């Protein structure tokens, strides 16, 4: 079943691309294809001007989909530790505590994730965004379940990311504070 | 030669439509000849009497059950490696025929076993691995149809077929590895100890089964192709 065709875009350092479209237009599929989870029938993905080597690309990409990748049985700090170890990232204890505090989970850090609300679970993902130096973000609806504070925090993180010369591809229904360098519209 | 020419479903559809009737015709002729050899010409067995004649169906069916699984696994490997749609469709087309031959082999084996060794079923290595083969066929068909997206079913079932292919050497060599009810290999490439008419009867029936399998698979493949490609231009033009 063909979802979209003739989609082409590029992002330079310090730019981010917004992917918009109605439900079912293929935003998630496009993002998963970029990240390498789904096979795209035709077309190619270039990173730094060349088709990327799989393991290098995976190290460079931070993908966050609809499901947060948070384990119910582990606490907030364990979830973050596990997520960072999975990405091969080590951080100082100080930076770790700072990140948890910045996303507002300091008082809940020893709670199992099962006891958090949906928005609080997504903040664990945002703590990962704070600590992960990946140059490419591929994010699918990052504002889901976030309250006004959470949205403000995300917008701040995105600005920081882009200002550091990094790149992002973000699918979103709601407009973000920063203006995208490019807009990709899917679905007629 | 462009190997991928026939990998296009529309060309394969036409090719299959042309070949299938000939395959069925060949199957009918070979079966008639084989059964004549087996039931009329071949002599009565010294030890088993007339009952042994079931081998003219039992052995070809067993050969086919293993051969078709091997072919299915090859198509599965092709479809996973080259990501072709047709490879997976052929594997799906082969599975029911393969399962049928496996069932026939087990069933006729049971009927042979009863008068000869006093039991319908004995848990020897070859019978058990043949039964496992039947379940592998069923598992393949079940897995292929267990997903909303048929392509996902294709890929999962193809991988399963490859995992199960290890069962084939076990069936084939089991008569050597264990002392089983089954005799050792009587028919080898170097020659045989069997009476020549019995051998011919079996070989003719084997070829007949092969032709039948080809015909049945091609017809089924055409049906699968039509169903999958029903939205394309060439299918709608039919």
């Amino acid at each position: 079943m063909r979802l979209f065709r003739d989609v082409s875009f590029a992002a330079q350092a310090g730019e981010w691309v917004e992917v918009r479209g109605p439900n079912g237009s293929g935003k998630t599929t496009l993002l998963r294809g970029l990240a390498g989870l789904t096979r795209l029938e035709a077309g190619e993905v270039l990173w730094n001007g060349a088709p990327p080597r799989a393991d290098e690309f995976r190290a460079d990409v931070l993908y966050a989909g609809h499901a947060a990748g948070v384990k119910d049985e582990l606490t907030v700090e364990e979830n973050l530790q596990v997520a960072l170890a999975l990405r091969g990232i080590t951080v100082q204890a100080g930076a770790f505590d700072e990140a948890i505090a910045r996303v507002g989970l300091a008082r809940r850090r020893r709670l199992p994730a099962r006891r958090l609300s949906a928005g609080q679970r997504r903040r664990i993902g945002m703590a990962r965004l704070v600590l992960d130096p990946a140059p490419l973000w591929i994010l699918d609806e990052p504002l889901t379940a976030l309250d006004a504070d959470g949205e403000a925090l995300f917008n701040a993180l995105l600005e920081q990311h882009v200002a550091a010369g990094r790149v992002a591809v973000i699918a979103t229904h709601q407009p973000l504070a920063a203006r995208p360098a490019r807009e990709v519209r899917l679905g007629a | 030669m462009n190997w991928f020419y026939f990998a296009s479903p529309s060309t394969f559809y036409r090719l299959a439509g042309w070949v299938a009737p000939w395959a069925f015709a060949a199957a009918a002729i070979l079966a008639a000849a084989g059964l004549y050899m087996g039931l009329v010409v071949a002599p009565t067995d010294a030890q088993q009497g007339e009952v042994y004649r079931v081998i003219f169906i039992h052995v070809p069916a067993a050969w086919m059950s293993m051969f078709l699984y091997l072919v299915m696994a090859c198509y599965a490997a092709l479809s996973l490696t080259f990501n072709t749609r047709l490879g997976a469709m052929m594997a799906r087309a082969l599975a029911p025929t393969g399962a049928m031959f496996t069932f026939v082999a087990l069933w006729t084996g049971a009927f042979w076993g009863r008068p000869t060794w006093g039991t319908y079923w004995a848990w020897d290595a070859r019978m058990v691995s043949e039964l496992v083969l039947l379940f592998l066929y069923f598992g393949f068909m079940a897995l292929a149809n267990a997903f909303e997206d048929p392509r996902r079913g294709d890929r999962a079932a193809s991988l399963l077929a490859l995992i199960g292919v290890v069962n084939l050497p076990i069936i084939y060599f089991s008569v050597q590895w264990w002392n089983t009810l089954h005799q050792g290999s009587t028919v080898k490439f170097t020659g045989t100890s069997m009476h020549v008419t019995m051998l011919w009867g079996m070989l003719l029936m084997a070829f007949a089964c092969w032709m039948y399998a080809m015909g049945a698979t091609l017809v089924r493949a055409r049906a699968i192709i039509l169903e999958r490609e029903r939205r394309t231009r060439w299918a709608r033009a039919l």
Partner: protein
Amino acid sequence: MNGFTWAFARDLRIAWRHPGETLLVIAFFALVCTLFPLGIGAEPRILERVGPGVIWVCALLAAFLSLPAMFAADYTDGSLEQMTLSPHPMMAWASGKIAAHWAVTGLPLTVLSPLLALQYGLDGATLGTLAFGLLIGTPLLSLLGAACSALTLGARGGGVLLALLALPLFVPVLIFGAGAAEAQAAGVSPAPHLSLLGAGLLAGCVALPPAVCAAIRIALD
């Protein structure tokens, strides 16, 4: 920290926090092993004769029970995607998960088996062969089960489909494992059975993790 230890430690920690699965497997094993003598009568000679086979079948079924959950939780909460996209090689963390699965299912079954086999009046040497066979066989069951479990992620037909796929593949393990203990009980050397089982385990360790990785990729596609 490499991918294997990452997955192994994480899964063990999760199982420790949420021991329901493991306890279920062990309880099922114990229950079914106890049901058989109740069902077929407690005559010692019969029990001795069927003991190895029955215990193996119970272990097999108990191991099977734990299969659906192997990848399901990670699949639904998005962890499987994150793992696939991590810089760690897929084979590493997939093997780690399978090893952790064995540690919380196969290993307890193996340790418990001599105790349960006492109900069947098996002698010491047979008990030992039974346990040793399970020690080699249960990792192979975890490997085969992982492949089937990954293949059926998101499939309709759930547990029944998994049974149809996994149990036929379990059959050779059962035959050799139970065969070893039965040989020992009959006074014959169990070495051929055990070495075939060992060979199967080695082959499985080499060939099945790539199959599991391929199945996971297909599931996420």
